[in-house]
């Protein structure tokens, strides 16, 4: 074990960050990249006060995890390029450089796809053309749109984690929420806010119901929620598909698995009245849910119970809290948020239900909850990041032809690195607060 003073490690980071920042600015690369580099710089250089260190320590892990994941993703990108091999022997250095270049361009396009293109934005703003402005801000709007369900499912999973239950059933809860929300949104004609509210409530109820099942089974029989939620995910998928093939959701005589459109009065209105900007009030709902979750977890007695149960269910029981009720409640709230995500997708983004409702939001939610340290604010930030990945992937695919699936792989790597602080610590030899993101300890239960 080397016992270099930590300062030197920090200095290394600072210098690295500085170099990266300078290079990026000189090369007219994107400002966001420079900001990213500055972030590392800041982490390295922050004064080592107790608060400051805790803060930077908390940031180091996610930042390094992201960095590592993108590094590995880049290597995969190079290695999956068949031309790379054929050219390598002829001109090794040039080929390597070109490949590295392609990786950087791919990531660069990812950023532009996620946040927009600054020159484009400024020209659009200058022109004052609503259409152009809409187009220029579209990437940002798409990122926020993709962020919305991720915040909600991420919050749900985070609440469950914090309360000591492993909800990996957000995917199924989202689908049932979507089915419930769609059903009400299609069939119950009420004037504007009421139809919408009822449909949202239905979605919340659906998700809550679907999470209540594993919750009550765990509380009453000890059935391990990981198993039951996996099974319920599969069942939810089948139920959704089956219902989409019946007149319960689709027009009589229709042969496509697409539901009726949601009634106008039950749709979530758009947030901005500019063309191309699809981001809708669901985002506000998600942010409110985040504030609400924060309030629930830290400012209510229920939240106190959830957190206590997550850390030490036995002591919580001794202090008079009801373990079973907490599990059921935490699962239900978790599922309600996932159900809300499903409803928001149906009522706001798609305005109909079809089998392609979720690309795996429920699984991303696990990454997001971990990456966000199971804190509401962290979840919002992590969801934004994943939303940016999802939306930016489109830009990357468009400009460079790199399949979006690379990002699925990269996001899996992000969870791996975040969940393995020791790995990151070993790779980079940096000090990282040993407090790993909180995940429920597996409690001894019969399965």
């Amino acid at each position: 074990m080397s016992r270099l003073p930590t300062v030197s490690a920090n200095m290394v980071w600072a210098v690295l960050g500085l170099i990266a920042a300078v290079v990026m600015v000189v090369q007219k690369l994107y400002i966001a990249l420079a900001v990213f580099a500055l972030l590392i710089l800041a982490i390295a250089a922050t004064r080592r006060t107790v608060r400051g260190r805790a803060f930077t320590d908390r940031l180091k892990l996610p930042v390094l995890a992201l960095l590592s994941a993108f590094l590995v993703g880049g290597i995969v990108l190079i290695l999956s390029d068949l031309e790379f091999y054929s050219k390598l022997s002829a001109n090794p250095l040039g080929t390597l450089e070109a490949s590295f270049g392609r990786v950087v361009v791919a990531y660069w396009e990812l950023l532009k796809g996620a946040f927009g293109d600054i020159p484009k934005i400024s020209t659009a703003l200058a022109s004052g053309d609503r259409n152009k402005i809409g187009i220029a801000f579209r990437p940002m709007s798409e990122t926020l749109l993709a962020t919305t369900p991720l915040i909600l499912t991420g919050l749900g999973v985070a609440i469950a984690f914090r309360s000591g239950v492993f909800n990996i059933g957000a995917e199924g809860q989202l689908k049932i929420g979507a089915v419930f929300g769609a059903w009400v949104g299609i069939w119950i004609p009420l004037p504007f806010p009421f139809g919408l509210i009822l449909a949202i409530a239905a979605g919340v109820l659906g998700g809550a119901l679907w999470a209540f099942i594993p919750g009550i089974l765990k509380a009453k029989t000890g059935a391990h929620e990981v198993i039951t939620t996996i099974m319920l995910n599969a069942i939810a998928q089948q139920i959704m598909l089956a219902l989409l093939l019946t007149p319960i959701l689709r027009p009589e005589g229709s042969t496509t698995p697409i539901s009726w459109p949601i009634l106008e009065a039950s749709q979530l209105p758009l947030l901005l009245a500019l063309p191309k900007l699809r981001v809708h009030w669901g985002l506000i709902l998600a942010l409110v849910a985040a504030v609400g979750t924060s309030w629930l977890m830290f400012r209510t007695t229920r939240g106190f119970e959830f957190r206590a149960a997550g850390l030490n269910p036995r002591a919580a029981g001794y202090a008079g809290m009801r373990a079973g009720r907490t599990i059921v409640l935490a699962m239900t709230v978790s599922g309600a948020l996932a159900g809300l995500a499903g409803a928001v997708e149906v009522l706001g983004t798609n305005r109909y239900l079809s089998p392609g409702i979720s690309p795996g939001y429920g699984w991303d939610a696990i990454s997001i909850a971990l990456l966000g340290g199971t804190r509401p604010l962290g979840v919002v930030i992590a969801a934004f990041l994943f939303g940016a990945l999802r939306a930016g992937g489109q830009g990357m695919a468009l400009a460079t032809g790199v399949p979006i699936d690379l990002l699925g792989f990269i996001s899996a790597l992000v969870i791996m690195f975040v969940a393995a602080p020791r790995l990151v610590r070993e790779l980079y030899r940096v000090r990282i607060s040993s407090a790993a993101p909180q995940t429920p300890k597996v409690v001894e239960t019969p399965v």
Partner: protein
Amino acid sequence: MTTSTPGMGAAPVLSAAERRARSNGLIRAAIYAVVGVLALGAGLFRLPASQTTTYRLVFDNAAIRLPDLTVPVGGTYAVAGVICLAVAAFQLLRPANLAWRRQLAIVAFTLIAAVLTGILGGKTPSLVGLIAAMVSFALPIVFAGLAAIFAERSGVFNIGIEGIILLGASATAVGGSILHSPYGGILIGVFAGLLLGLLLAVLSIRYRVDQIIAGTVLNLAAAGITTFMYTRILQVKPEFNAPGLVGTTPIPGLSEIPIIGPALFNGSIFLYVGYALIILMQLAIYRTRWGLRLRAAGENPNAAGTIGIDVLQIRYRSLAASGAVAGLGGAYLVVVSTGSFQIGMSAGIGFIGIAAMIFGGWKPVGVAMAALVFGFARSAESRLGTVGVDVPTVFLSILPYVVTIIVVAGLVGRVRVPAAAGQPYEQA
């Protein structure tokens, strides 16, 4: 929770576990009885005696010919009812929850058979085909289930099996194509699975990643990377996705046994490897030093560690074995059922394998039986469609999942999970 075990009744001599077992037994008996009475009633009074289903017992080209078996639908229901009632009576006479899995399997099997016969009324389906499909559907589930057993018996909860199957399949396809041999592909697939199992072990043991998260990572990464590689490489260069096929090897004589011969003795090498694995694992887990230590690692790793057994090594090896068997499952999908890698071809088999492990009581033979029950459900589903029956099949599709939930919830009997499964073990 430990603190709130509600005391049911006040029978003083019974322990809580026994009381629970007895009440479970009573519930089971009651359910069997009700179902039995319904089936019997339907068979005797509701269904027309004239309606029959004709099962064909042999394939057209079989050496040994048997006449078709014509069964009355009502009669089948009645027989199913009688069997259910018999199981109920047996359960009542033997109050402990002995062999509840077996009871459940018998009842489920009988009922599906009766319902199937009913639905197929008037048709002439092939019974031997139904059974052959049951076994074929069961085989990949068996591999996934055995992989799950390896991991969980050693104390690691492996939900990454689905991902390992998918990656193992892609490795088989690419490896077999490069080596121009499906058998080479199998080896590569198994080896890839082994490496992935080790990766899971390194993550969960060395880097203390929560086992469930590590498995989830593997599943997500597998889905992402295989799709990425498929679109980027295999799509462009299909020659990397042509590993070839492994043929079937009928066992002379045995494969001619009517009804079951074609199902059990006319398969690819995977079928026979599957048999060998089931038997060897069953024996090894309960009869050998290796098995004893494996179980100790999964039940109480501290006990094993303090007497000098290297628990971590056991877990590393078991996960490697788990990965290898899952990889074998992936290889099966490629070189037996498809001949190439396809996106998403694992289709949930890894999760059904975990379900089979639970239903099978963490025992290899149990897994085989559970896989047959699940395989039967799928086989029935497929057969119904084949002969053109107008019923939605969603209920058969979700059957394995629902059964698993019922089993893990202990609603039908007590489930005994390896005590340390899912818990990290720290070796100084």
